[in-house]
């Protein structure tokens, strides 16, 4: 694992609402780990329309997912990856793809259900989950008030949480 590798977070550039077929590749590899999204996959295959080679890999349980490294490692340059999964699975498939040598620009990820978001307390360096709409939060660990900023750290795996004193909160 290289520290500068991208990680999946709620605003990752790899996350898409809908798959789009790109022309600048020789092969499309589809990893489908969420049976509920079968329609989206079928739509993608229809859109590929036999113009580009594709391979569809379906995972139905955890044990199959453990083979994902092997499959990714065997790919050649010119392959683009399409991931369809729930959040937790997407995180591990994405990490495995980066480890195999895919770059963020060659991956499209379709998330089923909720994405997760984390905040990093700059007072005590504790990481905690925050709901998508939250702008302020109290640190579970040191109880300080945190304003959630827009900056994300790959190293700390969360958004910046600015500690502030609510008694002096100013509006500007």
């Amino acid at each position, binding site marked *: 694992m290289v520290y500068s*590798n991208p990680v999946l977070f709620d605003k990752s550039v790899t996350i898409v609402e809908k798959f789009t077929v790109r022309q600048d590749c*020789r092969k499309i590899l589809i990893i489908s780990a969420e049976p509920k999204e079968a329609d989206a996959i079928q739509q993608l295959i229809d859109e590929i329309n036999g113009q580009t080679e594709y391979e569809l890999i379906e995972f139905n349980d955890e044990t199959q997912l453990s083979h994902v490294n092997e499959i990714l*490692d065997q*790919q050649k*340059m010119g392959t683009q990856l399409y991931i369809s999964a729930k959040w937790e699975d997407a995180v591990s498939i994405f990490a495995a793809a*980066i480890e*195999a040598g*895919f*770059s963020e*620009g060659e991956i499209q990820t379709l998330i089923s259900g909720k994405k997760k978001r984390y905040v990093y307390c700059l007072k005590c360096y504790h990481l905690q989950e925050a709901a998508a709409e939250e702008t302020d939060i109290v640190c579970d660990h040191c109880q300080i008030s945190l304003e959630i900023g827009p900056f994300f750290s790959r190293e700390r795996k969360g958004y910046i949480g600015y500690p502030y004193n609510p008694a002096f909160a100013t509006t500007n």
Partner: protein
Amino acid sequence: MKAFGKIEVYVGKIVQETKYIKRFHLYPVDRELLPAFTGGSHIATYVKNGAETIERNYSLVSHPTDRTQYAIAIRKDDHSRGGSVYWHDEIKVGDRLEISWPKNHFPLAFKAAKHHVFYAAGIGITPFMTMMEDLTAEGKSFELHYAARTKEDCAFYDYLMAKYPGKCHFYFSRTEIPKKMTPVTMAEHRIGSHVYFCGPASMVKEFREAAESYGYPSYAIHFELFAVADKGPKNPFVVKLTNSNKKVAVSEEETLLEALLKAGVQAPHSCKVGGCGSCEVQVMEGEVDHRDHFYKDGERGSKKVILTCCSRAKESEKELVLEL
């Protein structure tokens, strides 16, 4: 390694590598340790020939962490501007010259790099010598594809065979069974491969286009050229500089960078062959005739910039306005 700026060295050893290639070993005059460097680095050499100073860039071929000496390998090229001929015919053991610190405009890739593949034609092997040393030290995966006319013309052949068994693929064109180095091997490289090309402009162009057609993303394609691509006649033009409030005329004889430096303008620069981007200046007005091989094709239109060491005003333009 004390002072910044240039380093004074003397030629300690000259080795005839092949019929046309000589290797020169340079030692520091002050006997201090030289700076270590990174794979792919080059130095600028400044050789005094009477009143004239011949400035040329050469890739280093000595080990990146050997700080007692530097080595460069030069191919004698009778069609070039005369730098290599001077080095071959005039430079003797004991001669002194100045060199720059090692600079690297051709570094190894890092991101997603699972495997590195080098494609060298002729003297284009030089930057790869030090890149392979670094990768070996780090235990990383790589392979070399290397084209030369014959085994005898192939610099470092014995060394490479012995040092990197199983990793080198040679292609000799003037033998009984000629073998041509072509881009097709790139179709088979695993995901996470980076390809590096070094050789004549035509070879680099062929390999770049092939890599793109195989779906290589642009960040995985790396190349180095030794000379400015010859792209049409040099037209005269004038530049107006907004920061220094000067006007500088550029003649048919010189590059924009040369004219700026002559006029006393502190114009940034490094490689002087349109490959590193150091000489980039913002263009406020006027159309540029881009002659670099630094920007990607899409970028030239969207950015209002000029590389002063190689690009010029478009034929139709008399004047460019630059932020300098």
